[in-house]
């Protein structure tokens, strides 16, 4: 699966696909949708926390911990990795590092969303045809 090869997703995503069955044929899509809906709030919180002066690094770490957990649960490998980098900057209280990394995170997060949407589209077409 090309998203796996390109490093966007990891084995956890495959695990989720394996849980899908006839009774619940769009399980993975539902989880992904839930992930994006749910994490939007966290992304906003992180954004706000980064704009605070002074920055509350402990709160930031809290939000990021939650966000990273969700990313890892759906197998979003690249995003999860960036989150780890972020947390390191956070622990070091490096505001610039956090801000820069967060830009990266948002990009990967958006890219993944697009790719997954395309992926599900293809699956739907294949199922329909």
């Amino acid at each position: 699966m090309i998203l796996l090869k390109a490093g966007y997703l990891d084995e956890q995503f495959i695990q989720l696909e394996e849980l899908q069955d006839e009774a619940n044929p769009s399980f993975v899509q539902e989880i992904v949708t839930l992930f994006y809906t749910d994490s939007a709030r966290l992304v906003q919180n992180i954004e706000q926390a980064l704009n605070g002066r002074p920055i509350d690094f402990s709160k930031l770490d809290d939000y990021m911990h939650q966000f990273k957990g969700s990313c890892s649960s759906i197998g979003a490998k690249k995003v999860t990795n960036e989150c780890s980098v972020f947390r390191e900057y956070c622990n070091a209280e490096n505001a610039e590092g956090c801000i820069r990394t967060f830009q990266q995170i948002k990009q990967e997060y958006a890219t993944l969303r697009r790719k997954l949407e395309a992926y599900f589209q293809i699956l739907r077409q294949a199922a329909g045809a």
Partner: protein
Amino acid sequence: MAVAGEVLLSGSQELHVLAVDDSHVDRKVIEKLLRISSCKVTAVESGSRALQFLGLDGEEGSLGFNGLKVNLIITDYSMPGMTGYELLRKIKQSSAFREIPVVIMSSENILTRIDRCLEEGAEEFLVKPVKLSDVKRLKDCIMRGETEENRGRRFYKRKFEDDSSPPSSESSTPSSPSSPLPLPPLSAAPFACDLVATSEILSSPHSSKRAKLCNSD
């Protein structure tokens, strides 16, 4: 009349699992993992909700409001309000529910955290993301624990270990083999397997990322 506290399987042999996680995504995933493993699932978002469900929030009743006995509790560690560890403690402190096995899940693989949870009576500590194989192994372990009366075996093993340990090691009471040892509550961890997990953890601090509960592989 200890029936309420005993973890008995219903005739249908289906485990009823109470899953606790503040993350909506994780709740949905664990629910699916459990359902696919033929377990009944009740998923709640917090420790306090879990206690409410069990009827431990100060109100009477111990079977959960839908009358189903809970055979296993699986909870996230880091949750706002009440952590999974605190929930674990409350459950182990309750006479009605201390026999229910509690499994902790965490995205962080911290040895001291794992130790703390196991010491407090957790059956197992799973590192997230939880896999289907984790759930299956867990289920097998519990089913086996129920049916093989491991309680009796474990009781014996614990007692033997306590007898052979030097008197100064743990308690301050003078050694006297004939005096009744303060027996660990059978309910703390009614499966033979958990002793293996503890000793493995202690002997290999840098190894496996989860407490390998059953030597069943």
